[in-house]
């Protein structure tokens, strides 16, 4: 994309995280002598996250959303592009500088059962980072601090000596959140923190995340395939398709207008329990794996609005439809009129 510069809104001085033209390319080997195929997991992704804002990123498996979260923290090295955190270019930092920054940038993973060491107690899991970063002077202080964090996330001191397998899924996710927040980070990436949880437990975790953000002044990047949860928690939401942002804007604007045909398809897949919004299956089949990213829109093959000769030849830039709306879409034929069912939302 050539006009990414225009999509980056630098006018807001409160941005904590800038992601600029970020790409991640994997070489997939084919046989012993075959030329490797290039898989574009991320392709020129540009956005910012303001201080104390929750930015939601929604996308399906393979959309690159987890890769994006990992690249921002440099748990995975991006191939091209920059990540700027609090005016520091994260992508240019050496190992020791990066380590120093890690305390301020934390991540909560999808599967707390997989990301919590099964041989450590809750005290050890939550306390480990506190000790490493020397946030306490002695063991007594450490226990006190861990207990305070457990209480903040809705667990009690009785959890201290327990192991991950003795906790429910919701309790494990609370431990993972306490572990991340105990380091007093400014920025937390939440990578599918709700999947594998019951809806009633998801609601508890959503409430907890919002409480924590309000009380601690956190900046959050909330990554999920659950559009409903993302819209609920996030101030703004970005929609990822095949490693590209196809729509980005204030949550209420995206929910109401659904400019990109892919966004519209996601809403159609999300019927209401009371039957007011029905299941509308717009897309058949699955997203193809894109190798050797070619010209044209990544959504061309599945798009109901596709225009041959244009959409397959040129890649639509992520631009505001109306300037000043902060609602951007990467589409030559966006849906202009509001979705007919968007008016019934509560």
């Amino acid at each position, binding site marked *: 994309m050539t006009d990414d510069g225009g999509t980056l809104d630098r006018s807001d001085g409160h941005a904590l995280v800038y992601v600029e033209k970020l790409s991640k390319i994997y070489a997939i080997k084919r046989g012993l002598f075959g030329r490797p195929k290039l898989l574009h997991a991320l392709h020129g992704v540009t956005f910012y996250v303001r201080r104390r804002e929750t930015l939601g990123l929604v996308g399906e498996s393979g959309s690159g959303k987890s890769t994006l979260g990992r690249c921002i923290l440099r748990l995975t090295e991006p191939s091209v592009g920059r990540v700027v955190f609090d005016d520091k270019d994260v992508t240019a930092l050496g190992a020791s500088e990066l380590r120093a920054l890690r305390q301020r940038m934390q991540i909560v993973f999808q599967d707390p059962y997989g990301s919590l060491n099964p041989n450590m107690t809750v005290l050890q899991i939550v306390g480990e980072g506190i000790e490493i970063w020397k946030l306490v002077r002695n063991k007594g202080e450490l226990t006190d601090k861990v207990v305070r964090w457990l209480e903040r996330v809705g667990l009690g001191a009785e959890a201290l000596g327990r192991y991950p397998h003795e906790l429910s899924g919701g309790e494990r996710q609370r431990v993972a959140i306490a572990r991340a927040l105990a380091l007093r980070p400014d920025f937390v990436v939440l990578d599918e923190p709700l999947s594998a949880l019951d809806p*009633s437990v998801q*609601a508890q975790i959503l409430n907890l995340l919002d409480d924590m953000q309000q009380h601690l002044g956190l900046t959050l990047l909330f990554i999920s395939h659950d559009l409903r949860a993302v819209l609920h928690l996030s101030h703004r939401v970005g929609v990822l398709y095949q490693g590209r942002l196809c729509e980005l804007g204030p949550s209420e604007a995206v929910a109401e207008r659904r400019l990109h045909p892919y966004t519209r398809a996601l809403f159609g897949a999300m019927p209401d329990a009371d039957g007011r919004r029905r299941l509308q299956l717009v897309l058949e089949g699955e997203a193809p794996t894109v190798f050797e990213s070619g010209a044209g829109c990544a959504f061309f093959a599945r798009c109901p609005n596709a225009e041959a000769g244009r959409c397959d030849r040129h890649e639509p830039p992520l631009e505001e439809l109306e300037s000043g709306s902060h609602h951007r879409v990467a589409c030559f034929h966006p849906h202009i009129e509001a979705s007919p069912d968007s008016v019934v939302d509560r």
Partner: protein
Amino acid sequence: MSAEPLLSVRDLAVSFEGEDGRVVAVKGMSFDVPPQRAVAMVGESGSGKSVTAHALLGLLPSPPAHIDGGEVRFGGVDLLKLPERKLRPYRGGKIGLVFQDPTAALNPVYSVGAQLSEAIRLHLPLGRRAVRERALGLLHRVGFPEPEARFGDYPHELSGGMCQRAMIAIALAADAELLVADEPTSALDMLAAAQIVALLADLRRERGLSLLFISHDLGLVAAVADDVVVVYAGEVVERGPARALLGHAQHPYTQALLASVPPLRRERRRRNQPVRRLPVLAGAPPLLTRGDAGCRFAPRCREVVARCREAAPPLYPVGPLEVRCFLREQPRRAALLPEVAP
């Protein structure tokens, strides 16, 4: 529900032998699946939904599981009384099964085509060529891409959505009359989940199938179900037509489940402004022991009164619904029935 049910579960009770004694998972579970209707079963993890589905076809490993009582009648035959040998024509034959995690339910060392062919051979006396033809036809019908070319693909080469389509084809191998789908979408993305639900709805109409759809996604339930059965702590707490139940739920538990789903918010929210809190249902379903008195939901219920802790409520009729709650007991005057959409 006037027609003779195809599947009728009565007073099913299942317990598990644990290190600390016997744990009751299902107790007094009763519901029907009428012919050609889709019944959804909803409830939290640990409510006994999956245990019920597995118990129907003798799929619970015993020990530790033990069927303590009840009946599971399918077309008039009590499946719980059948010996293993006589159960086989039902399991995967007349009753097709689709599970939560298709990548785990499929055998990783056999191709999708081989597993589907095996399922067909097991139930139908067909020759090789006919088996393959039937297999290809089924794969084609469930929207499996390029059935001929991908007949020999192994499960790990397929996406979750494709594996689930293959599972549905296997469930239909022998012209099932009832499809039991146990959380068939919870391992899938939004679009793949919606596609699977639409496929199940189509297949049901087209083949006159009955469907028992177990899920905790209430939106998808609304999209596919005629009737809904709400399960809590191993028993039915509310049941009735889907529209009426999901639109005007009467049981405090069902109401709490519905309220915990985030609404599609439209108002603009500023930074530093908290989101509207979701009403939550704290705690977890209880572990049942033998001497339980009172309503099983009472410890978590917002509307609990003294009576709830003393006696167990029966299912009361409330309009088109049946509700296990003392507070919804209606005076016998039709004029006082609440307005519930048909």
